C-alpha cells in the first residue's frame, strides 16, 4: 500500500477528532465519510497509487463521487447535524456560565511530536495538527467567556532542538501569522488582541516582523486577548523584569535628583518592590492565569509562567495536544469551578 496514501489516511482520521465539533457540517461529513471509506478501501484492495480516488474500482469511485455530490447539493442532513451540535455546545456553555468562568487560561501545547509518532505521520504533521487543535480550543474558550488565553508556542529551550525542526516551526508560525493578517477584518470584528510574549529578538527576522505587525494591527481590540509565548522562559522573564525595574528606578531617581552624590536611600528602604517587578514582567499585560493546562499528562511546568501560577489550578489531561478539544476545556473549567472558592481565598490571602 502506498506510504503517502497511508499517511494521508491517518492524518484524515486524526483530524476528524478535531473537526468533530466544527461548525462546518459539510467538512465534518466529508472528513468522516472520506477517511473511513478510504481506509476500508485501502486495506481491502491494497492499491498502489498516489491519487486517492483515481485507481479505485470504477463502481466504488462512482459511488464515492455520487455520495459527495449528493451531500453538496442537498446538505440538509449535514446542516441539521451541524446546527444541533452547535446548539448543544452553546447550551452546555450557558449552563457552565451559571458558575464562575475563569478569566485567564494558559495552555502548554505539549505532545505534537508524540502525536506524529503515534499516527506514523511526518514529524511536521504533528505541529500542523496541533495548530488545528489550537484553533478549536481557542474557539471554545472564547465562546464560554474566557477573556485571556495564553499558549506556550515555543520555549527558549526549544532552540536546542534540531535546526531543521526549529526552522520548520518558525516557518509554520510565519505562515499562520501571515494567514492571520489576511483575516484582520474578522479578527477585529471579534475584538481579539494578539500579543507575542518573549524574547522576540531570538526569532528569525521575517517572523519577528510579522509578529510585530500582528500586534500593532490588533492593538485596539479589548474584548478578548490571545497571548502567544514564543522564545519565552520564566528564567529569562524574571531577570529581565529585574533589569527593566532597575532601569526604571535609576531613571526616576536621576530625574528627581536624589542620587546626586551617588548614594541611594538607606539600606532599609528597598527601592524595588514585588509590584515593580510584576509591572515589568512580559505577562504584566494580563492577570495571573486561573487554570494552567498541560496536555499529554506531564506534570511539570517546563519554565512556563512559574511566577504567575502561584494560585493557578494545574490541570494535566492525558490527551496529546492535537487530541485536545472540547471535553478537555469543559472538564478543566468544571474542575476550576469546583475549587474556585479555595483558590479565591488563597488569592485574597496574598
Amino acid at each position, binding site marked *: 500500500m502506498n506510504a503517502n496514501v497511508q499517511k494521508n489516511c491517518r492524518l484524515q482520521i486524526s483530524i476528524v477528532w478535531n473537526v468533530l465539533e466544527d461548525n462546518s457540517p459539510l467538512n465534518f461529513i466529508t472528513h468522516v465519510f472520506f477517511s473511513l471509506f478510504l481506509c476500508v478501501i485501502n486495506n481491502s484492495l491494497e492499491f498502489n497509487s498516489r491519487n486517492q480516488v483515481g485507481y479505485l474500482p470504477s463502481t466504488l469511485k462512482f459511488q464515492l463521487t455520487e455520495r459527495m455530490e449528493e451531500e453538496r447539493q442537498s446538505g440538509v442532513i449535514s446542516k441539521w447535524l451541524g446546527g444541533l451540535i452547535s446548539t448543544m455546545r452553546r447550551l452546555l456553555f*450557558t*449552563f457552565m456560565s*451559571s*458558575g464562575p468562568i475563569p478569566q485567564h487560561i494558559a495552555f502548554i501545547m505539549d505532545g505534537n511530536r508524540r502525536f506524529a509518532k503515534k499516527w506514523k505521520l511526518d514529524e511536521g504533521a504533528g505541529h500542523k495538527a496541533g495548530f488545528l487543535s489550537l484553533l478549536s480550543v481557542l474557539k471554545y474558550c472564547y465562546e464560554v467567556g474566557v477573556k485571556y488565553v495564553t499558549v506556550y508556542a515555543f*520555549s*527558549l*529551550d*526549544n532552540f*536546542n*532542538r534540531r535546526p531543521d525542526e526549529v526552522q520548520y516551526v518558525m516557518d509554520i508560525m510565519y505562515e499562520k501569522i501571515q494567514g492571520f493578517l489576511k483575516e484582520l477584518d474578522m479578527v477585529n470584528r471579534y475584538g481579539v488582541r494578539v500579543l507575542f510574549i518573549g524574547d522576540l529578538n531570538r526569532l528569525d527576522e521575517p517572523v519577528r516582523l510579522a509578529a510585530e505587525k500582528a500586534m500593532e494591527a490588533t492593538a485596539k481590540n479589548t474584548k478578548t486577548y490571545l497571548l502567544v509565548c514564543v522564545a519565552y*522562559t*520564566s*528564567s*529569562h522573564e*524574571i*531577570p*529581565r523584569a*529585574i*533589569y527593566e*525595574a*532597575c*532601569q526604571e*528606578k*535609576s531613571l526616576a531617581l*536621576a530625574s528627581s535628583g536624589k*542620587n546626586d552624590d*551617588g*548614594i*541611594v536611600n538607606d539600606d532599609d528602604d*528597598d*527601592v*524595588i*518592590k*514585588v509590584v*515593580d*517587578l510584576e509591572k515589568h514582567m512580559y505577562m504584566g499585560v494580563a492577570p495571573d492565569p486561573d487554570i494552567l493546562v498541560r496536555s499529554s499528562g*506531564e*506534570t*511539570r*511546568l*517546563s*519554565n512556563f509562567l*512559574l*511566577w504567575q*501560577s*502561584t*494560585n*493557578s*489550578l*494545574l*490541570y494535566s489531561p492525558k490527551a496529546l495536544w492535537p487530541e485536545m478539544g472540547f471535553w478537555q476545556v469543559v472538564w478543566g473549567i*468544571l474542575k476550576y*469551578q*469546583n*475549587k474556585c472558592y*479555595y*483558590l479565591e481565598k*488563597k488569592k485574597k*490571602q*496574598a
Partner: protein
Amino acid sequence: MDPVAESQKFFRRISQSSNIMLFLLWHVVHLILSVLYIVREIFRAIENYLITNGYVKTYTNLNLDRVKYLGIVIDSDEARNTSKVVELLEWLSALGVKKLCLYDREGVLKKSKAVFMERFGSTENSVAGPLVSKKRMDFEFVSITDGKEAVAKAANLLFKKYYVDGDSEKPFFTEAHLTDALKTLGAVEPDPDLLLIYGPVRCHLGFPAWRIRYTEMVHMGPLKYKKLGLIMKAIHRFTKVKQNYGS
C-alpha cells in the same frame, strides 16, 4: 389583553425559569462531581491498601536515586496539624528520603521547625542512638517570603551593585545574576526533583518560582487523607519519567 405583551411576559417567565433550571442543574452537576471525588478517594484507599500490603509488586523496590531532593507543599491550614506532618515525615524517612524541602505559604511549618529537627534532623541529638541514624533527613523550610519577596530583595541587591554608581557598566541581567544575588542573601538549595502537593487543589501555592522549572508536581490530596502507597506510586512514576528539557 394585548397578545404581544402576553407572549412577551410568557417568554420572559420561561427564560427566567430556564435560568433557574440551569442554575439548579449546575449545582446538581457539581454535587455529582463531589460524589465522584469521594468515589475516587475510595479507589485510592483500596489502591493504597494493595500497595502497602505488597500485593502490587511494581512498587516494592523503589529507586530513590533519582529523587535527590523531594519537595512537599502543604496547605497552611492543614500544616497546623503537626502530628499529621510528623506522620508523613516518618513515612518518608522510612522510604529512605534523605533531603527534603517543606513549603507552606504562611510559614506555619517554619514555626514547628524545632519539633521536626529534633525528631528527624541530621544535626546532633544526644538522645538518638545509632539505630535511628538512618531516619535522619536534611530539611529546608520555605514559605512565601522566600519566593517573590526574596526575588525583590535580590533585585535591590543588584540595583545597589550596578546602578548606584552612575558610571558603572550595567549588564543585562540573566539567571546567573539572579542566582548570585540570591546566594548573597542566603543559602541556595538545589531545585526539587519532585513536588508532592498536599491540599485540596493541585496548585503550588507560591513555591519559589525559579526553583520549579522542571519539577514534576503531583497532587496527593488533603493531608488528612495521606496514604503511604500513593507516595510510593508517585515516586515510582517519577522514576519512569523521561525529560527532554525542551530539546
